[in-house]
C-alpha cells in the first residue's frame, strides 16, 4: 500500500521546539564553530585572521593527507571484500528455527556488544607473543609476528580485528534477509533440480539485495570513520602504517592544535563520505533494478 500522505499539522512544530533547541545547542552550534574555524587562522585566542579558502587549499595539497586517504580507502575496500562474503556465508550456515537459532544468534552477536576500545585492548593482548593466544601460536609455529614493528602484520591485525568485530552485523542483516524468503521458492528450486549454488545465486542473493545494500553502506561508512580500535591497538603505528583518516585528523587538531586546517579537513572528510555513499547507493540501486509495477494503488 502507498505511504499515507498525512495532512500537515502546524501545531506539531511547537511540540518539537525543545528538541530543536537541544539539537541546535549540541550539534548545530559546534558545526558552525567548525565552519568558522575552517576559514580563519587562529594565531592566538585574541588574534584571528580571516583567510577564506586558504586552509582548504592547504589541506588538499597536503601529502600526508593524501597517503592517509589512500590507506583509508584501501582499508575500507578490504573490509568490504572480506566482511560481506563472510557475513553472508555465516548467515547461510546459521540454523533457521528452534532454540538453536536463538542460541547461535546470541553467540554471533556477542562481539557487537563489546565497547570499541575494549575490542582494541582484547586484540592488543591477543597478539602479544608472551601472553596472547595468537602471538603464542605464531611463535610456536615459528612465524615472526609483531604488530608493533611490522607494518604489514599491523595492517592485517587491524583488518582481522575489524572483521572479528563487525562481520556479525553483516551476518545478522543477511540472516534477516534470508528469513524473509518464502518457502515456496526453495521448494520450486528443489523441484527444478537446482544445485545449492544455483539456489544461492538465483534465489537467495537477489532476495537479499535490500539488506545487503544496507550492510554495505553501514560497513563502508563505519570503516571510513574508524578510530578507536586501531588507535588502541597500534596507536597508528608502526610509523603511520595504520594511521587512517580520522586519526590523522585528530592528530592534526588535538595533537598539533592546528584548528584551522583541522576544521577545514573535517568538513572535507564529511563531504567525501557523503559523496561516496551517494555514489555507492545510486550504483547499487541501478544494478538489478526491477521496474516498479506501481503495486499498492488499486
Amino acid at each position: 500500500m502507498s505511504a499515507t500522505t498525512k495532512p500537515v499539522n502546524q501545531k506539531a512544530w511547537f511540540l518539537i521546539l525543545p528538541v530543536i533547541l537541544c539539537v541546535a545547542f549540541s550539534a548545530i552550534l559546534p558545526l558552525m564553530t567548525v565552519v568558522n574555524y575552517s576559514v580563519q587562522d587562529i594565531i592566538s585566542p585574541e588574534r584571528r585572521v580571516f583567510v577564506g579558502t586558504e586552509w582548504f587549499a592547504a589541506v588538499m595539497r597536503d601529502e600526508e593527507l593524501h597517503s592517509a586517504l589512500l590507506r583509508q580507502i584501501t582499508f575500507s575496500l578490504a573490509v568490504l571484500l572480506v566482511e560481506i562474503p563472510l557475513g553472508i556465508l555465516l548467515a547461510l550456515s546459521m540454523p533457521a528455527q528452534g532454540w538453536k537459532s536463538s542460541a547461535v544468534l546470541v553467540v554471533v552477536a556477542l562481539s557487537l556488544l563489546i565497547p570499541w576500545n575494549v575490542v582494541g585492548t582484547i586484540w592488543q593482548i591477543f597478539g602479544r607473543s608472551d601472553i596472547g593466544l595468537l602471538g603464542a601460536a605464531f611463535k610456536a609455529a615459528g612465524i615472526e609476528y609483531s604488530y608493533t614493528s611490522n607494518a604489514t602484520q599491523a595492517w592485517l591485525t587491524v583488518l582481522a580485528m575489524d572483521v572479528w568485530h563487525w562481520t556479525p552485523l553483516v551476518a545478522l542483516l543477511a540472516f534477516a534477509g534470508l528469513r524473509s524468503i518464502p518457502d515456496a521458492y526453495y521448494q520450486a528450486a528443489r523441484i527444478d533440480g537446482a544445485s545449492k549454488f544455483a539456489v544461492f545465486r538465483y534465489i537467495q542473493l537477489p532476495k537479499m539485495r535490500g539488506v545487503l545494500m544496507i550492510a554495505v553502506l553501514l560497513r563502508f561508512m563505519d570503516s571510513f570513520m574508524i578510530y578507536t580500535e586501531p588507535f588502541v591497538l597500534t596507536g597508528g603505528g608502526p610509523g603511520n602504517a595504520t594511521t587512517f583518516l580520522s586519526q590523522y585528523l585528530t592528530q592534526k587538531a588535538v595533537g598539533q592544535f592546528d584548528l584551522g586546517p583541522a576544521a577545514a579537513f573535517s568538513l572535507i572528510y564529511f563531504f567525501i563520505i557523503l559523496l561516496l555513499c551517494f555514489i555507492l547507493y545510486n550504483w547499487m540501486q541501478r544494478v538489478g533494478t526491477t521496474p516498479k509495477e506501481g503495486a499498492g494503488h488499486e
Partner: protein
Amino acid sequence: MDLVLDSIVKRVGAQVWLHGIGMALQPGAVTVLLGATQAGKTSLMRIMAGLDEPTEGRVRVDGVDVTGMPVRERNVAMVYQQFINYPSLTVADNIASPLKLRGEKDVARRVRELAERLHIEMFLQRYPSELSGGQQQRVALARALAKGAPLMLLDEPLVNLDYKLREELREELTQLFATGDSTVVYATTEPGEALLLGGYTAVLHEGRLLQYGPTAEVFHAPNSLRVARAFSDPPMNLVRAQATLGGLRLPGGTELPVALPGGHGNDGGDVTLGLRASALRLHARPGDVAVQGTVELAEISGSDTFVHAATPWGELVAQITGVHYLELGSSVALHLDPAQAYVFGADGALLLAPARPGRN
C-alpha cells in the same frame, strides 16, 4: 452519511492514479466499487476515508468540505483484506475498543450482541491469532460495526477466504448491511459479488469511473463496451459487425435483425455485437439466429456447461444449463435470440441493450 466526491484526481509522481472521479454515493445503501486490480479502488477508498488527500478535487460529507480533514476526525470504519485485528487484545477487547474510545456505557453487553450477530460469541476470550481466517475477519467486521460509523469501507474483505466461506459471509454481510443505516462502500474484482450484494455499483477502470447506478441497471444496461467487459463473468462475447438497414451484418454474412437507434442503420459503420454467454443456446427457438462452430472446449461446472467454440464470428463462450458432454472438435450450432443482443458503437458507447424481462 451523504458523501459526494467532486472531480477527484490523484497523482503520484508522474503517474495519474485517479482521473477526475465525481460521484454522489447513495446514502444508507451499499455501493460496490467494481474493477480489476489496480483500477483505483483502494486509492479511491483511502480518499473517501481521509487516509490520503486527493491531488485535486474535493470531498464533501453532508455538504461540509472535509478534504483536508484527517481520518481521525472523520467517522469512518474500515475493513481490509488482511484480517486486521489488534493482536495483543482478546476478541472481546478488540470489539470493545471503539466503544471504549467513545466512552460508551454498557460495553460488555454491546460486545456480546455484536459477537452474536457475527457468530463469534464463543471466541470472546481468545486471541485473533488462535482463530481461523474467516473468524478473524468476523472480528474485524464486528469491530467496524461497533464503531457505528455512518460510513463503512470494506476493501475486498472476503478475497483471502475460502470459496464456501466467502459465500456464507457474503450472505451475512447483505443481511447486516440491510439492517444498518450506514453508507457502505465495498470494493471487489468479481462481478458475481456485485450482483449478490445488490445496492449500487460503480465500475472503475484504469482510474476512471465508467458508470454508477443501481447494480441491476448497470448490469443490464452497461453504458459502454468497457463497462460490459468489466461487469460480466464469464466474459461477454464480442463480435465485430457492420450496421445495416435491417440490423447487423456479422462476419460470414449472417444478418441479425435488430432495431438500431435512428441514424446508425444505414451507414455501414463498424459496431460491436455483445452477447452474454447465457444468451447462447444449444436448442433453437422460433426467431433464433444460428451460428455453426467447432467445439474447442467444454467445461462442466456442476449445473452448467461452458462451451468454447470457434465460429466464423470468432471465439464464443456459451453458458448452457445442464450437463452436456461435447466431443472436442465436433460441430455445434449455437442459437441466440436477436432480442438478447447488445450493440455498441465504434466509440464503445451503448447503442442497444436487451429489454429487461418484466417482473412484479
